[in-house]
């Protein structure tokens, strides 16, 4: 039996800044909490195709698993937790600043 589809977000890196971004219904955000949560497999595939076509703005889009906490997406895997926060040796990256695309 195929594994049930788990909630996902589309994530990538910003072309110019290189930092981590997440797809929203209308564009991109730097805050995972604002990302569009995809719960349908076919829909997720389409949203990913949509993202990968935005080659002038983003690099390396893929689907990342998320957990839902009161409908707010949080990282399901520790790699995504680091991406959503920044490195652990300095307070750099997202933990340093939060701004919108």
């Amino acid at each position, binding site marked *: 039996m195929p594994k049930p589809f788990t909630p996902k977000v589309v994530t990538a*890196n910003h*072309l*110019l*800044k*290189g*930092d*981590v971004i997440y797809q929203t219904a209308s564009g991109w955000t730097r805050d995972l909490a604002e990302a569009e949560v995809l719960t349908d497999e076919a829909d997720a595939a389409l949203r990913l195709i949509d993202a990968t076509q935005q*080659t*002038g703005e983003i*690099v*390396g889009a893929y689907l990342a698993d998320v957990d839902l906490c009161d409908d707010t997406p949080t990282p*399901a*895997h*520790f*790699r995504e937790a*680091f*991406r959503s926060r*920044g*490195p*652990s*040796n*300095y307070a*750099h*990256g*997202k933990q340093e600043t939060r701004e919108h695309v």
Partner: protein
Amino acid sequence: MYRYTDFDAAFIKERNAQFRAQVERRIDGSLTEDEFKPLRLMNGLYLQLHAYMLRVAIPYGTLNSRQMHVLADIADKWDKGYGHFTTRQNIQYNWPELRDVPDMLDALGEVQMHAIQTSGNTIRNVTADHFAGAAADEIADPRPVAELIRQWSTDHPEFQFLPRKFKVAVTGSPHDRAVTKAHDIGLRMIEREGQAGFEVIVGGGLGRTPMIGKVIKDFLPREDLLPYLEAIVSVYNVLGRRDNKYKARIKITVHENGIEEIRARVEERYALIRPQFTGVDQQMLAAIESDFAAPKFKIKSLAPFEAAYTNDPVFRSWADTNLTAHRAPGYAIVSISLKAHGATPGDASSEQMRVMADLARAFAHDELRISHEQNVILPHVHKADLPALHAALKEAGLATANIGLISDIIACPGMDYCALATARSIPIAQEIATRFDALKLEHDVGPLKIKISGCINACGHHHVGHIGILGLDRAGVENYQITLGGDGTEDASIGERAGPGFSAEEIIPAIERLVLAYLELRTEPAETFLQTYRRLGLAPFKTALYPEAQADAA
């Protein structure tokens, strides 16, 4: 030090201009990422977890104060005020923005540095003994040869699309500080019957299939070096596997075909191409050698050194730990530790870089080195200047007396930065260093190399650590495997896996049990961890690591 010729300067300028145009075309949409990626990688630009990363070569680890100052300026202007020195004698900037990278490369070009071939399936930055030209045990300075190889390999038309990356290391000393046996090609400068030449080692490497290199040529006359290297890389270029990334390095080519077959093919190729090398390379080498002439060593009284050594215990501890014998009388090689307890191994702030640059100018004939162990070396310091040097280092937080000790840890960037990593390395290194500092045990433990990699690719050299730590992702949780008994010197060996891995919380206590067991097991304080391990094997260390297993078996 080598100074760029007009040809070199024009080449770098042209190459940087090309890359600037490539970046512009990527931004304006003329190039897709698939088209741009190989171009940026050829120029050292990666995209990591949180940002771009620019990897700048420090050829054979040598730089002068002006270059170090520019590295600091770049860190301030286009990054976050620090740089990370790597196990391949490179510096990495973790936070550049794409538009700024061409300016960074131009700034580097101004001081004769670049990021060419620090990535991609090419011949990478050539590494060398960080004590080159200074070590008391050295036969010859390996850097002129390393520079010749840099020039030969840079933009070499035959070798821009090798099956996989290709790393060359050179040592001029019988004590191998360049880990030559873990490189695609390792060169050891030797002499036979008064003639200078090389022992050529091929097919070493770490990564997912660690291999100790094999001798392909036990004596290669010095003047035959480039044609012989070209023959090896040429054979690899044809024979190396392009069907499977994990089997593409030359270590697998040598392993699958056998060293005899590879040697025969290399000899055949060599015979064919040798006549094309008409001696121009040797003329170039002679010119390069004059650039590496030893500095004019001073003759001064050792009294200031002796007074400080006698009267200042902090200085004495540092001198006992961080100095290495120099070939010139009255001189010492100074290792500046970038491993302050709790700091990120290999990181230096721009301020620290400037302090080191200024100290190199004041006390060290304007030379600095970057070691593969992620420390900075001042290769030529007169002992009379050591007290003043030490005082200045102390002020900048750079006087940690731990070279070669348990807190002098190699750690790759791991999952704090690297897109390939499967677990973090840096926090593990920080915690081990902090823990043993708190225990006040590290000088008692003595020489012990811990090396940590955050994935199977082994940038942290864990296979050749006396204690190696490999971070993995086990079902979505960071997990750390321990290997024991590895060695990266002339007696190179690959560490043996100790058993099941440990969680991030368990790994520090596990290392502590291991080291305490060693203190119990050694015959005398002079018997090092590695010697004890070689005498006793894995069993007693395994008992210390897995006490529950022993209890269960009882």
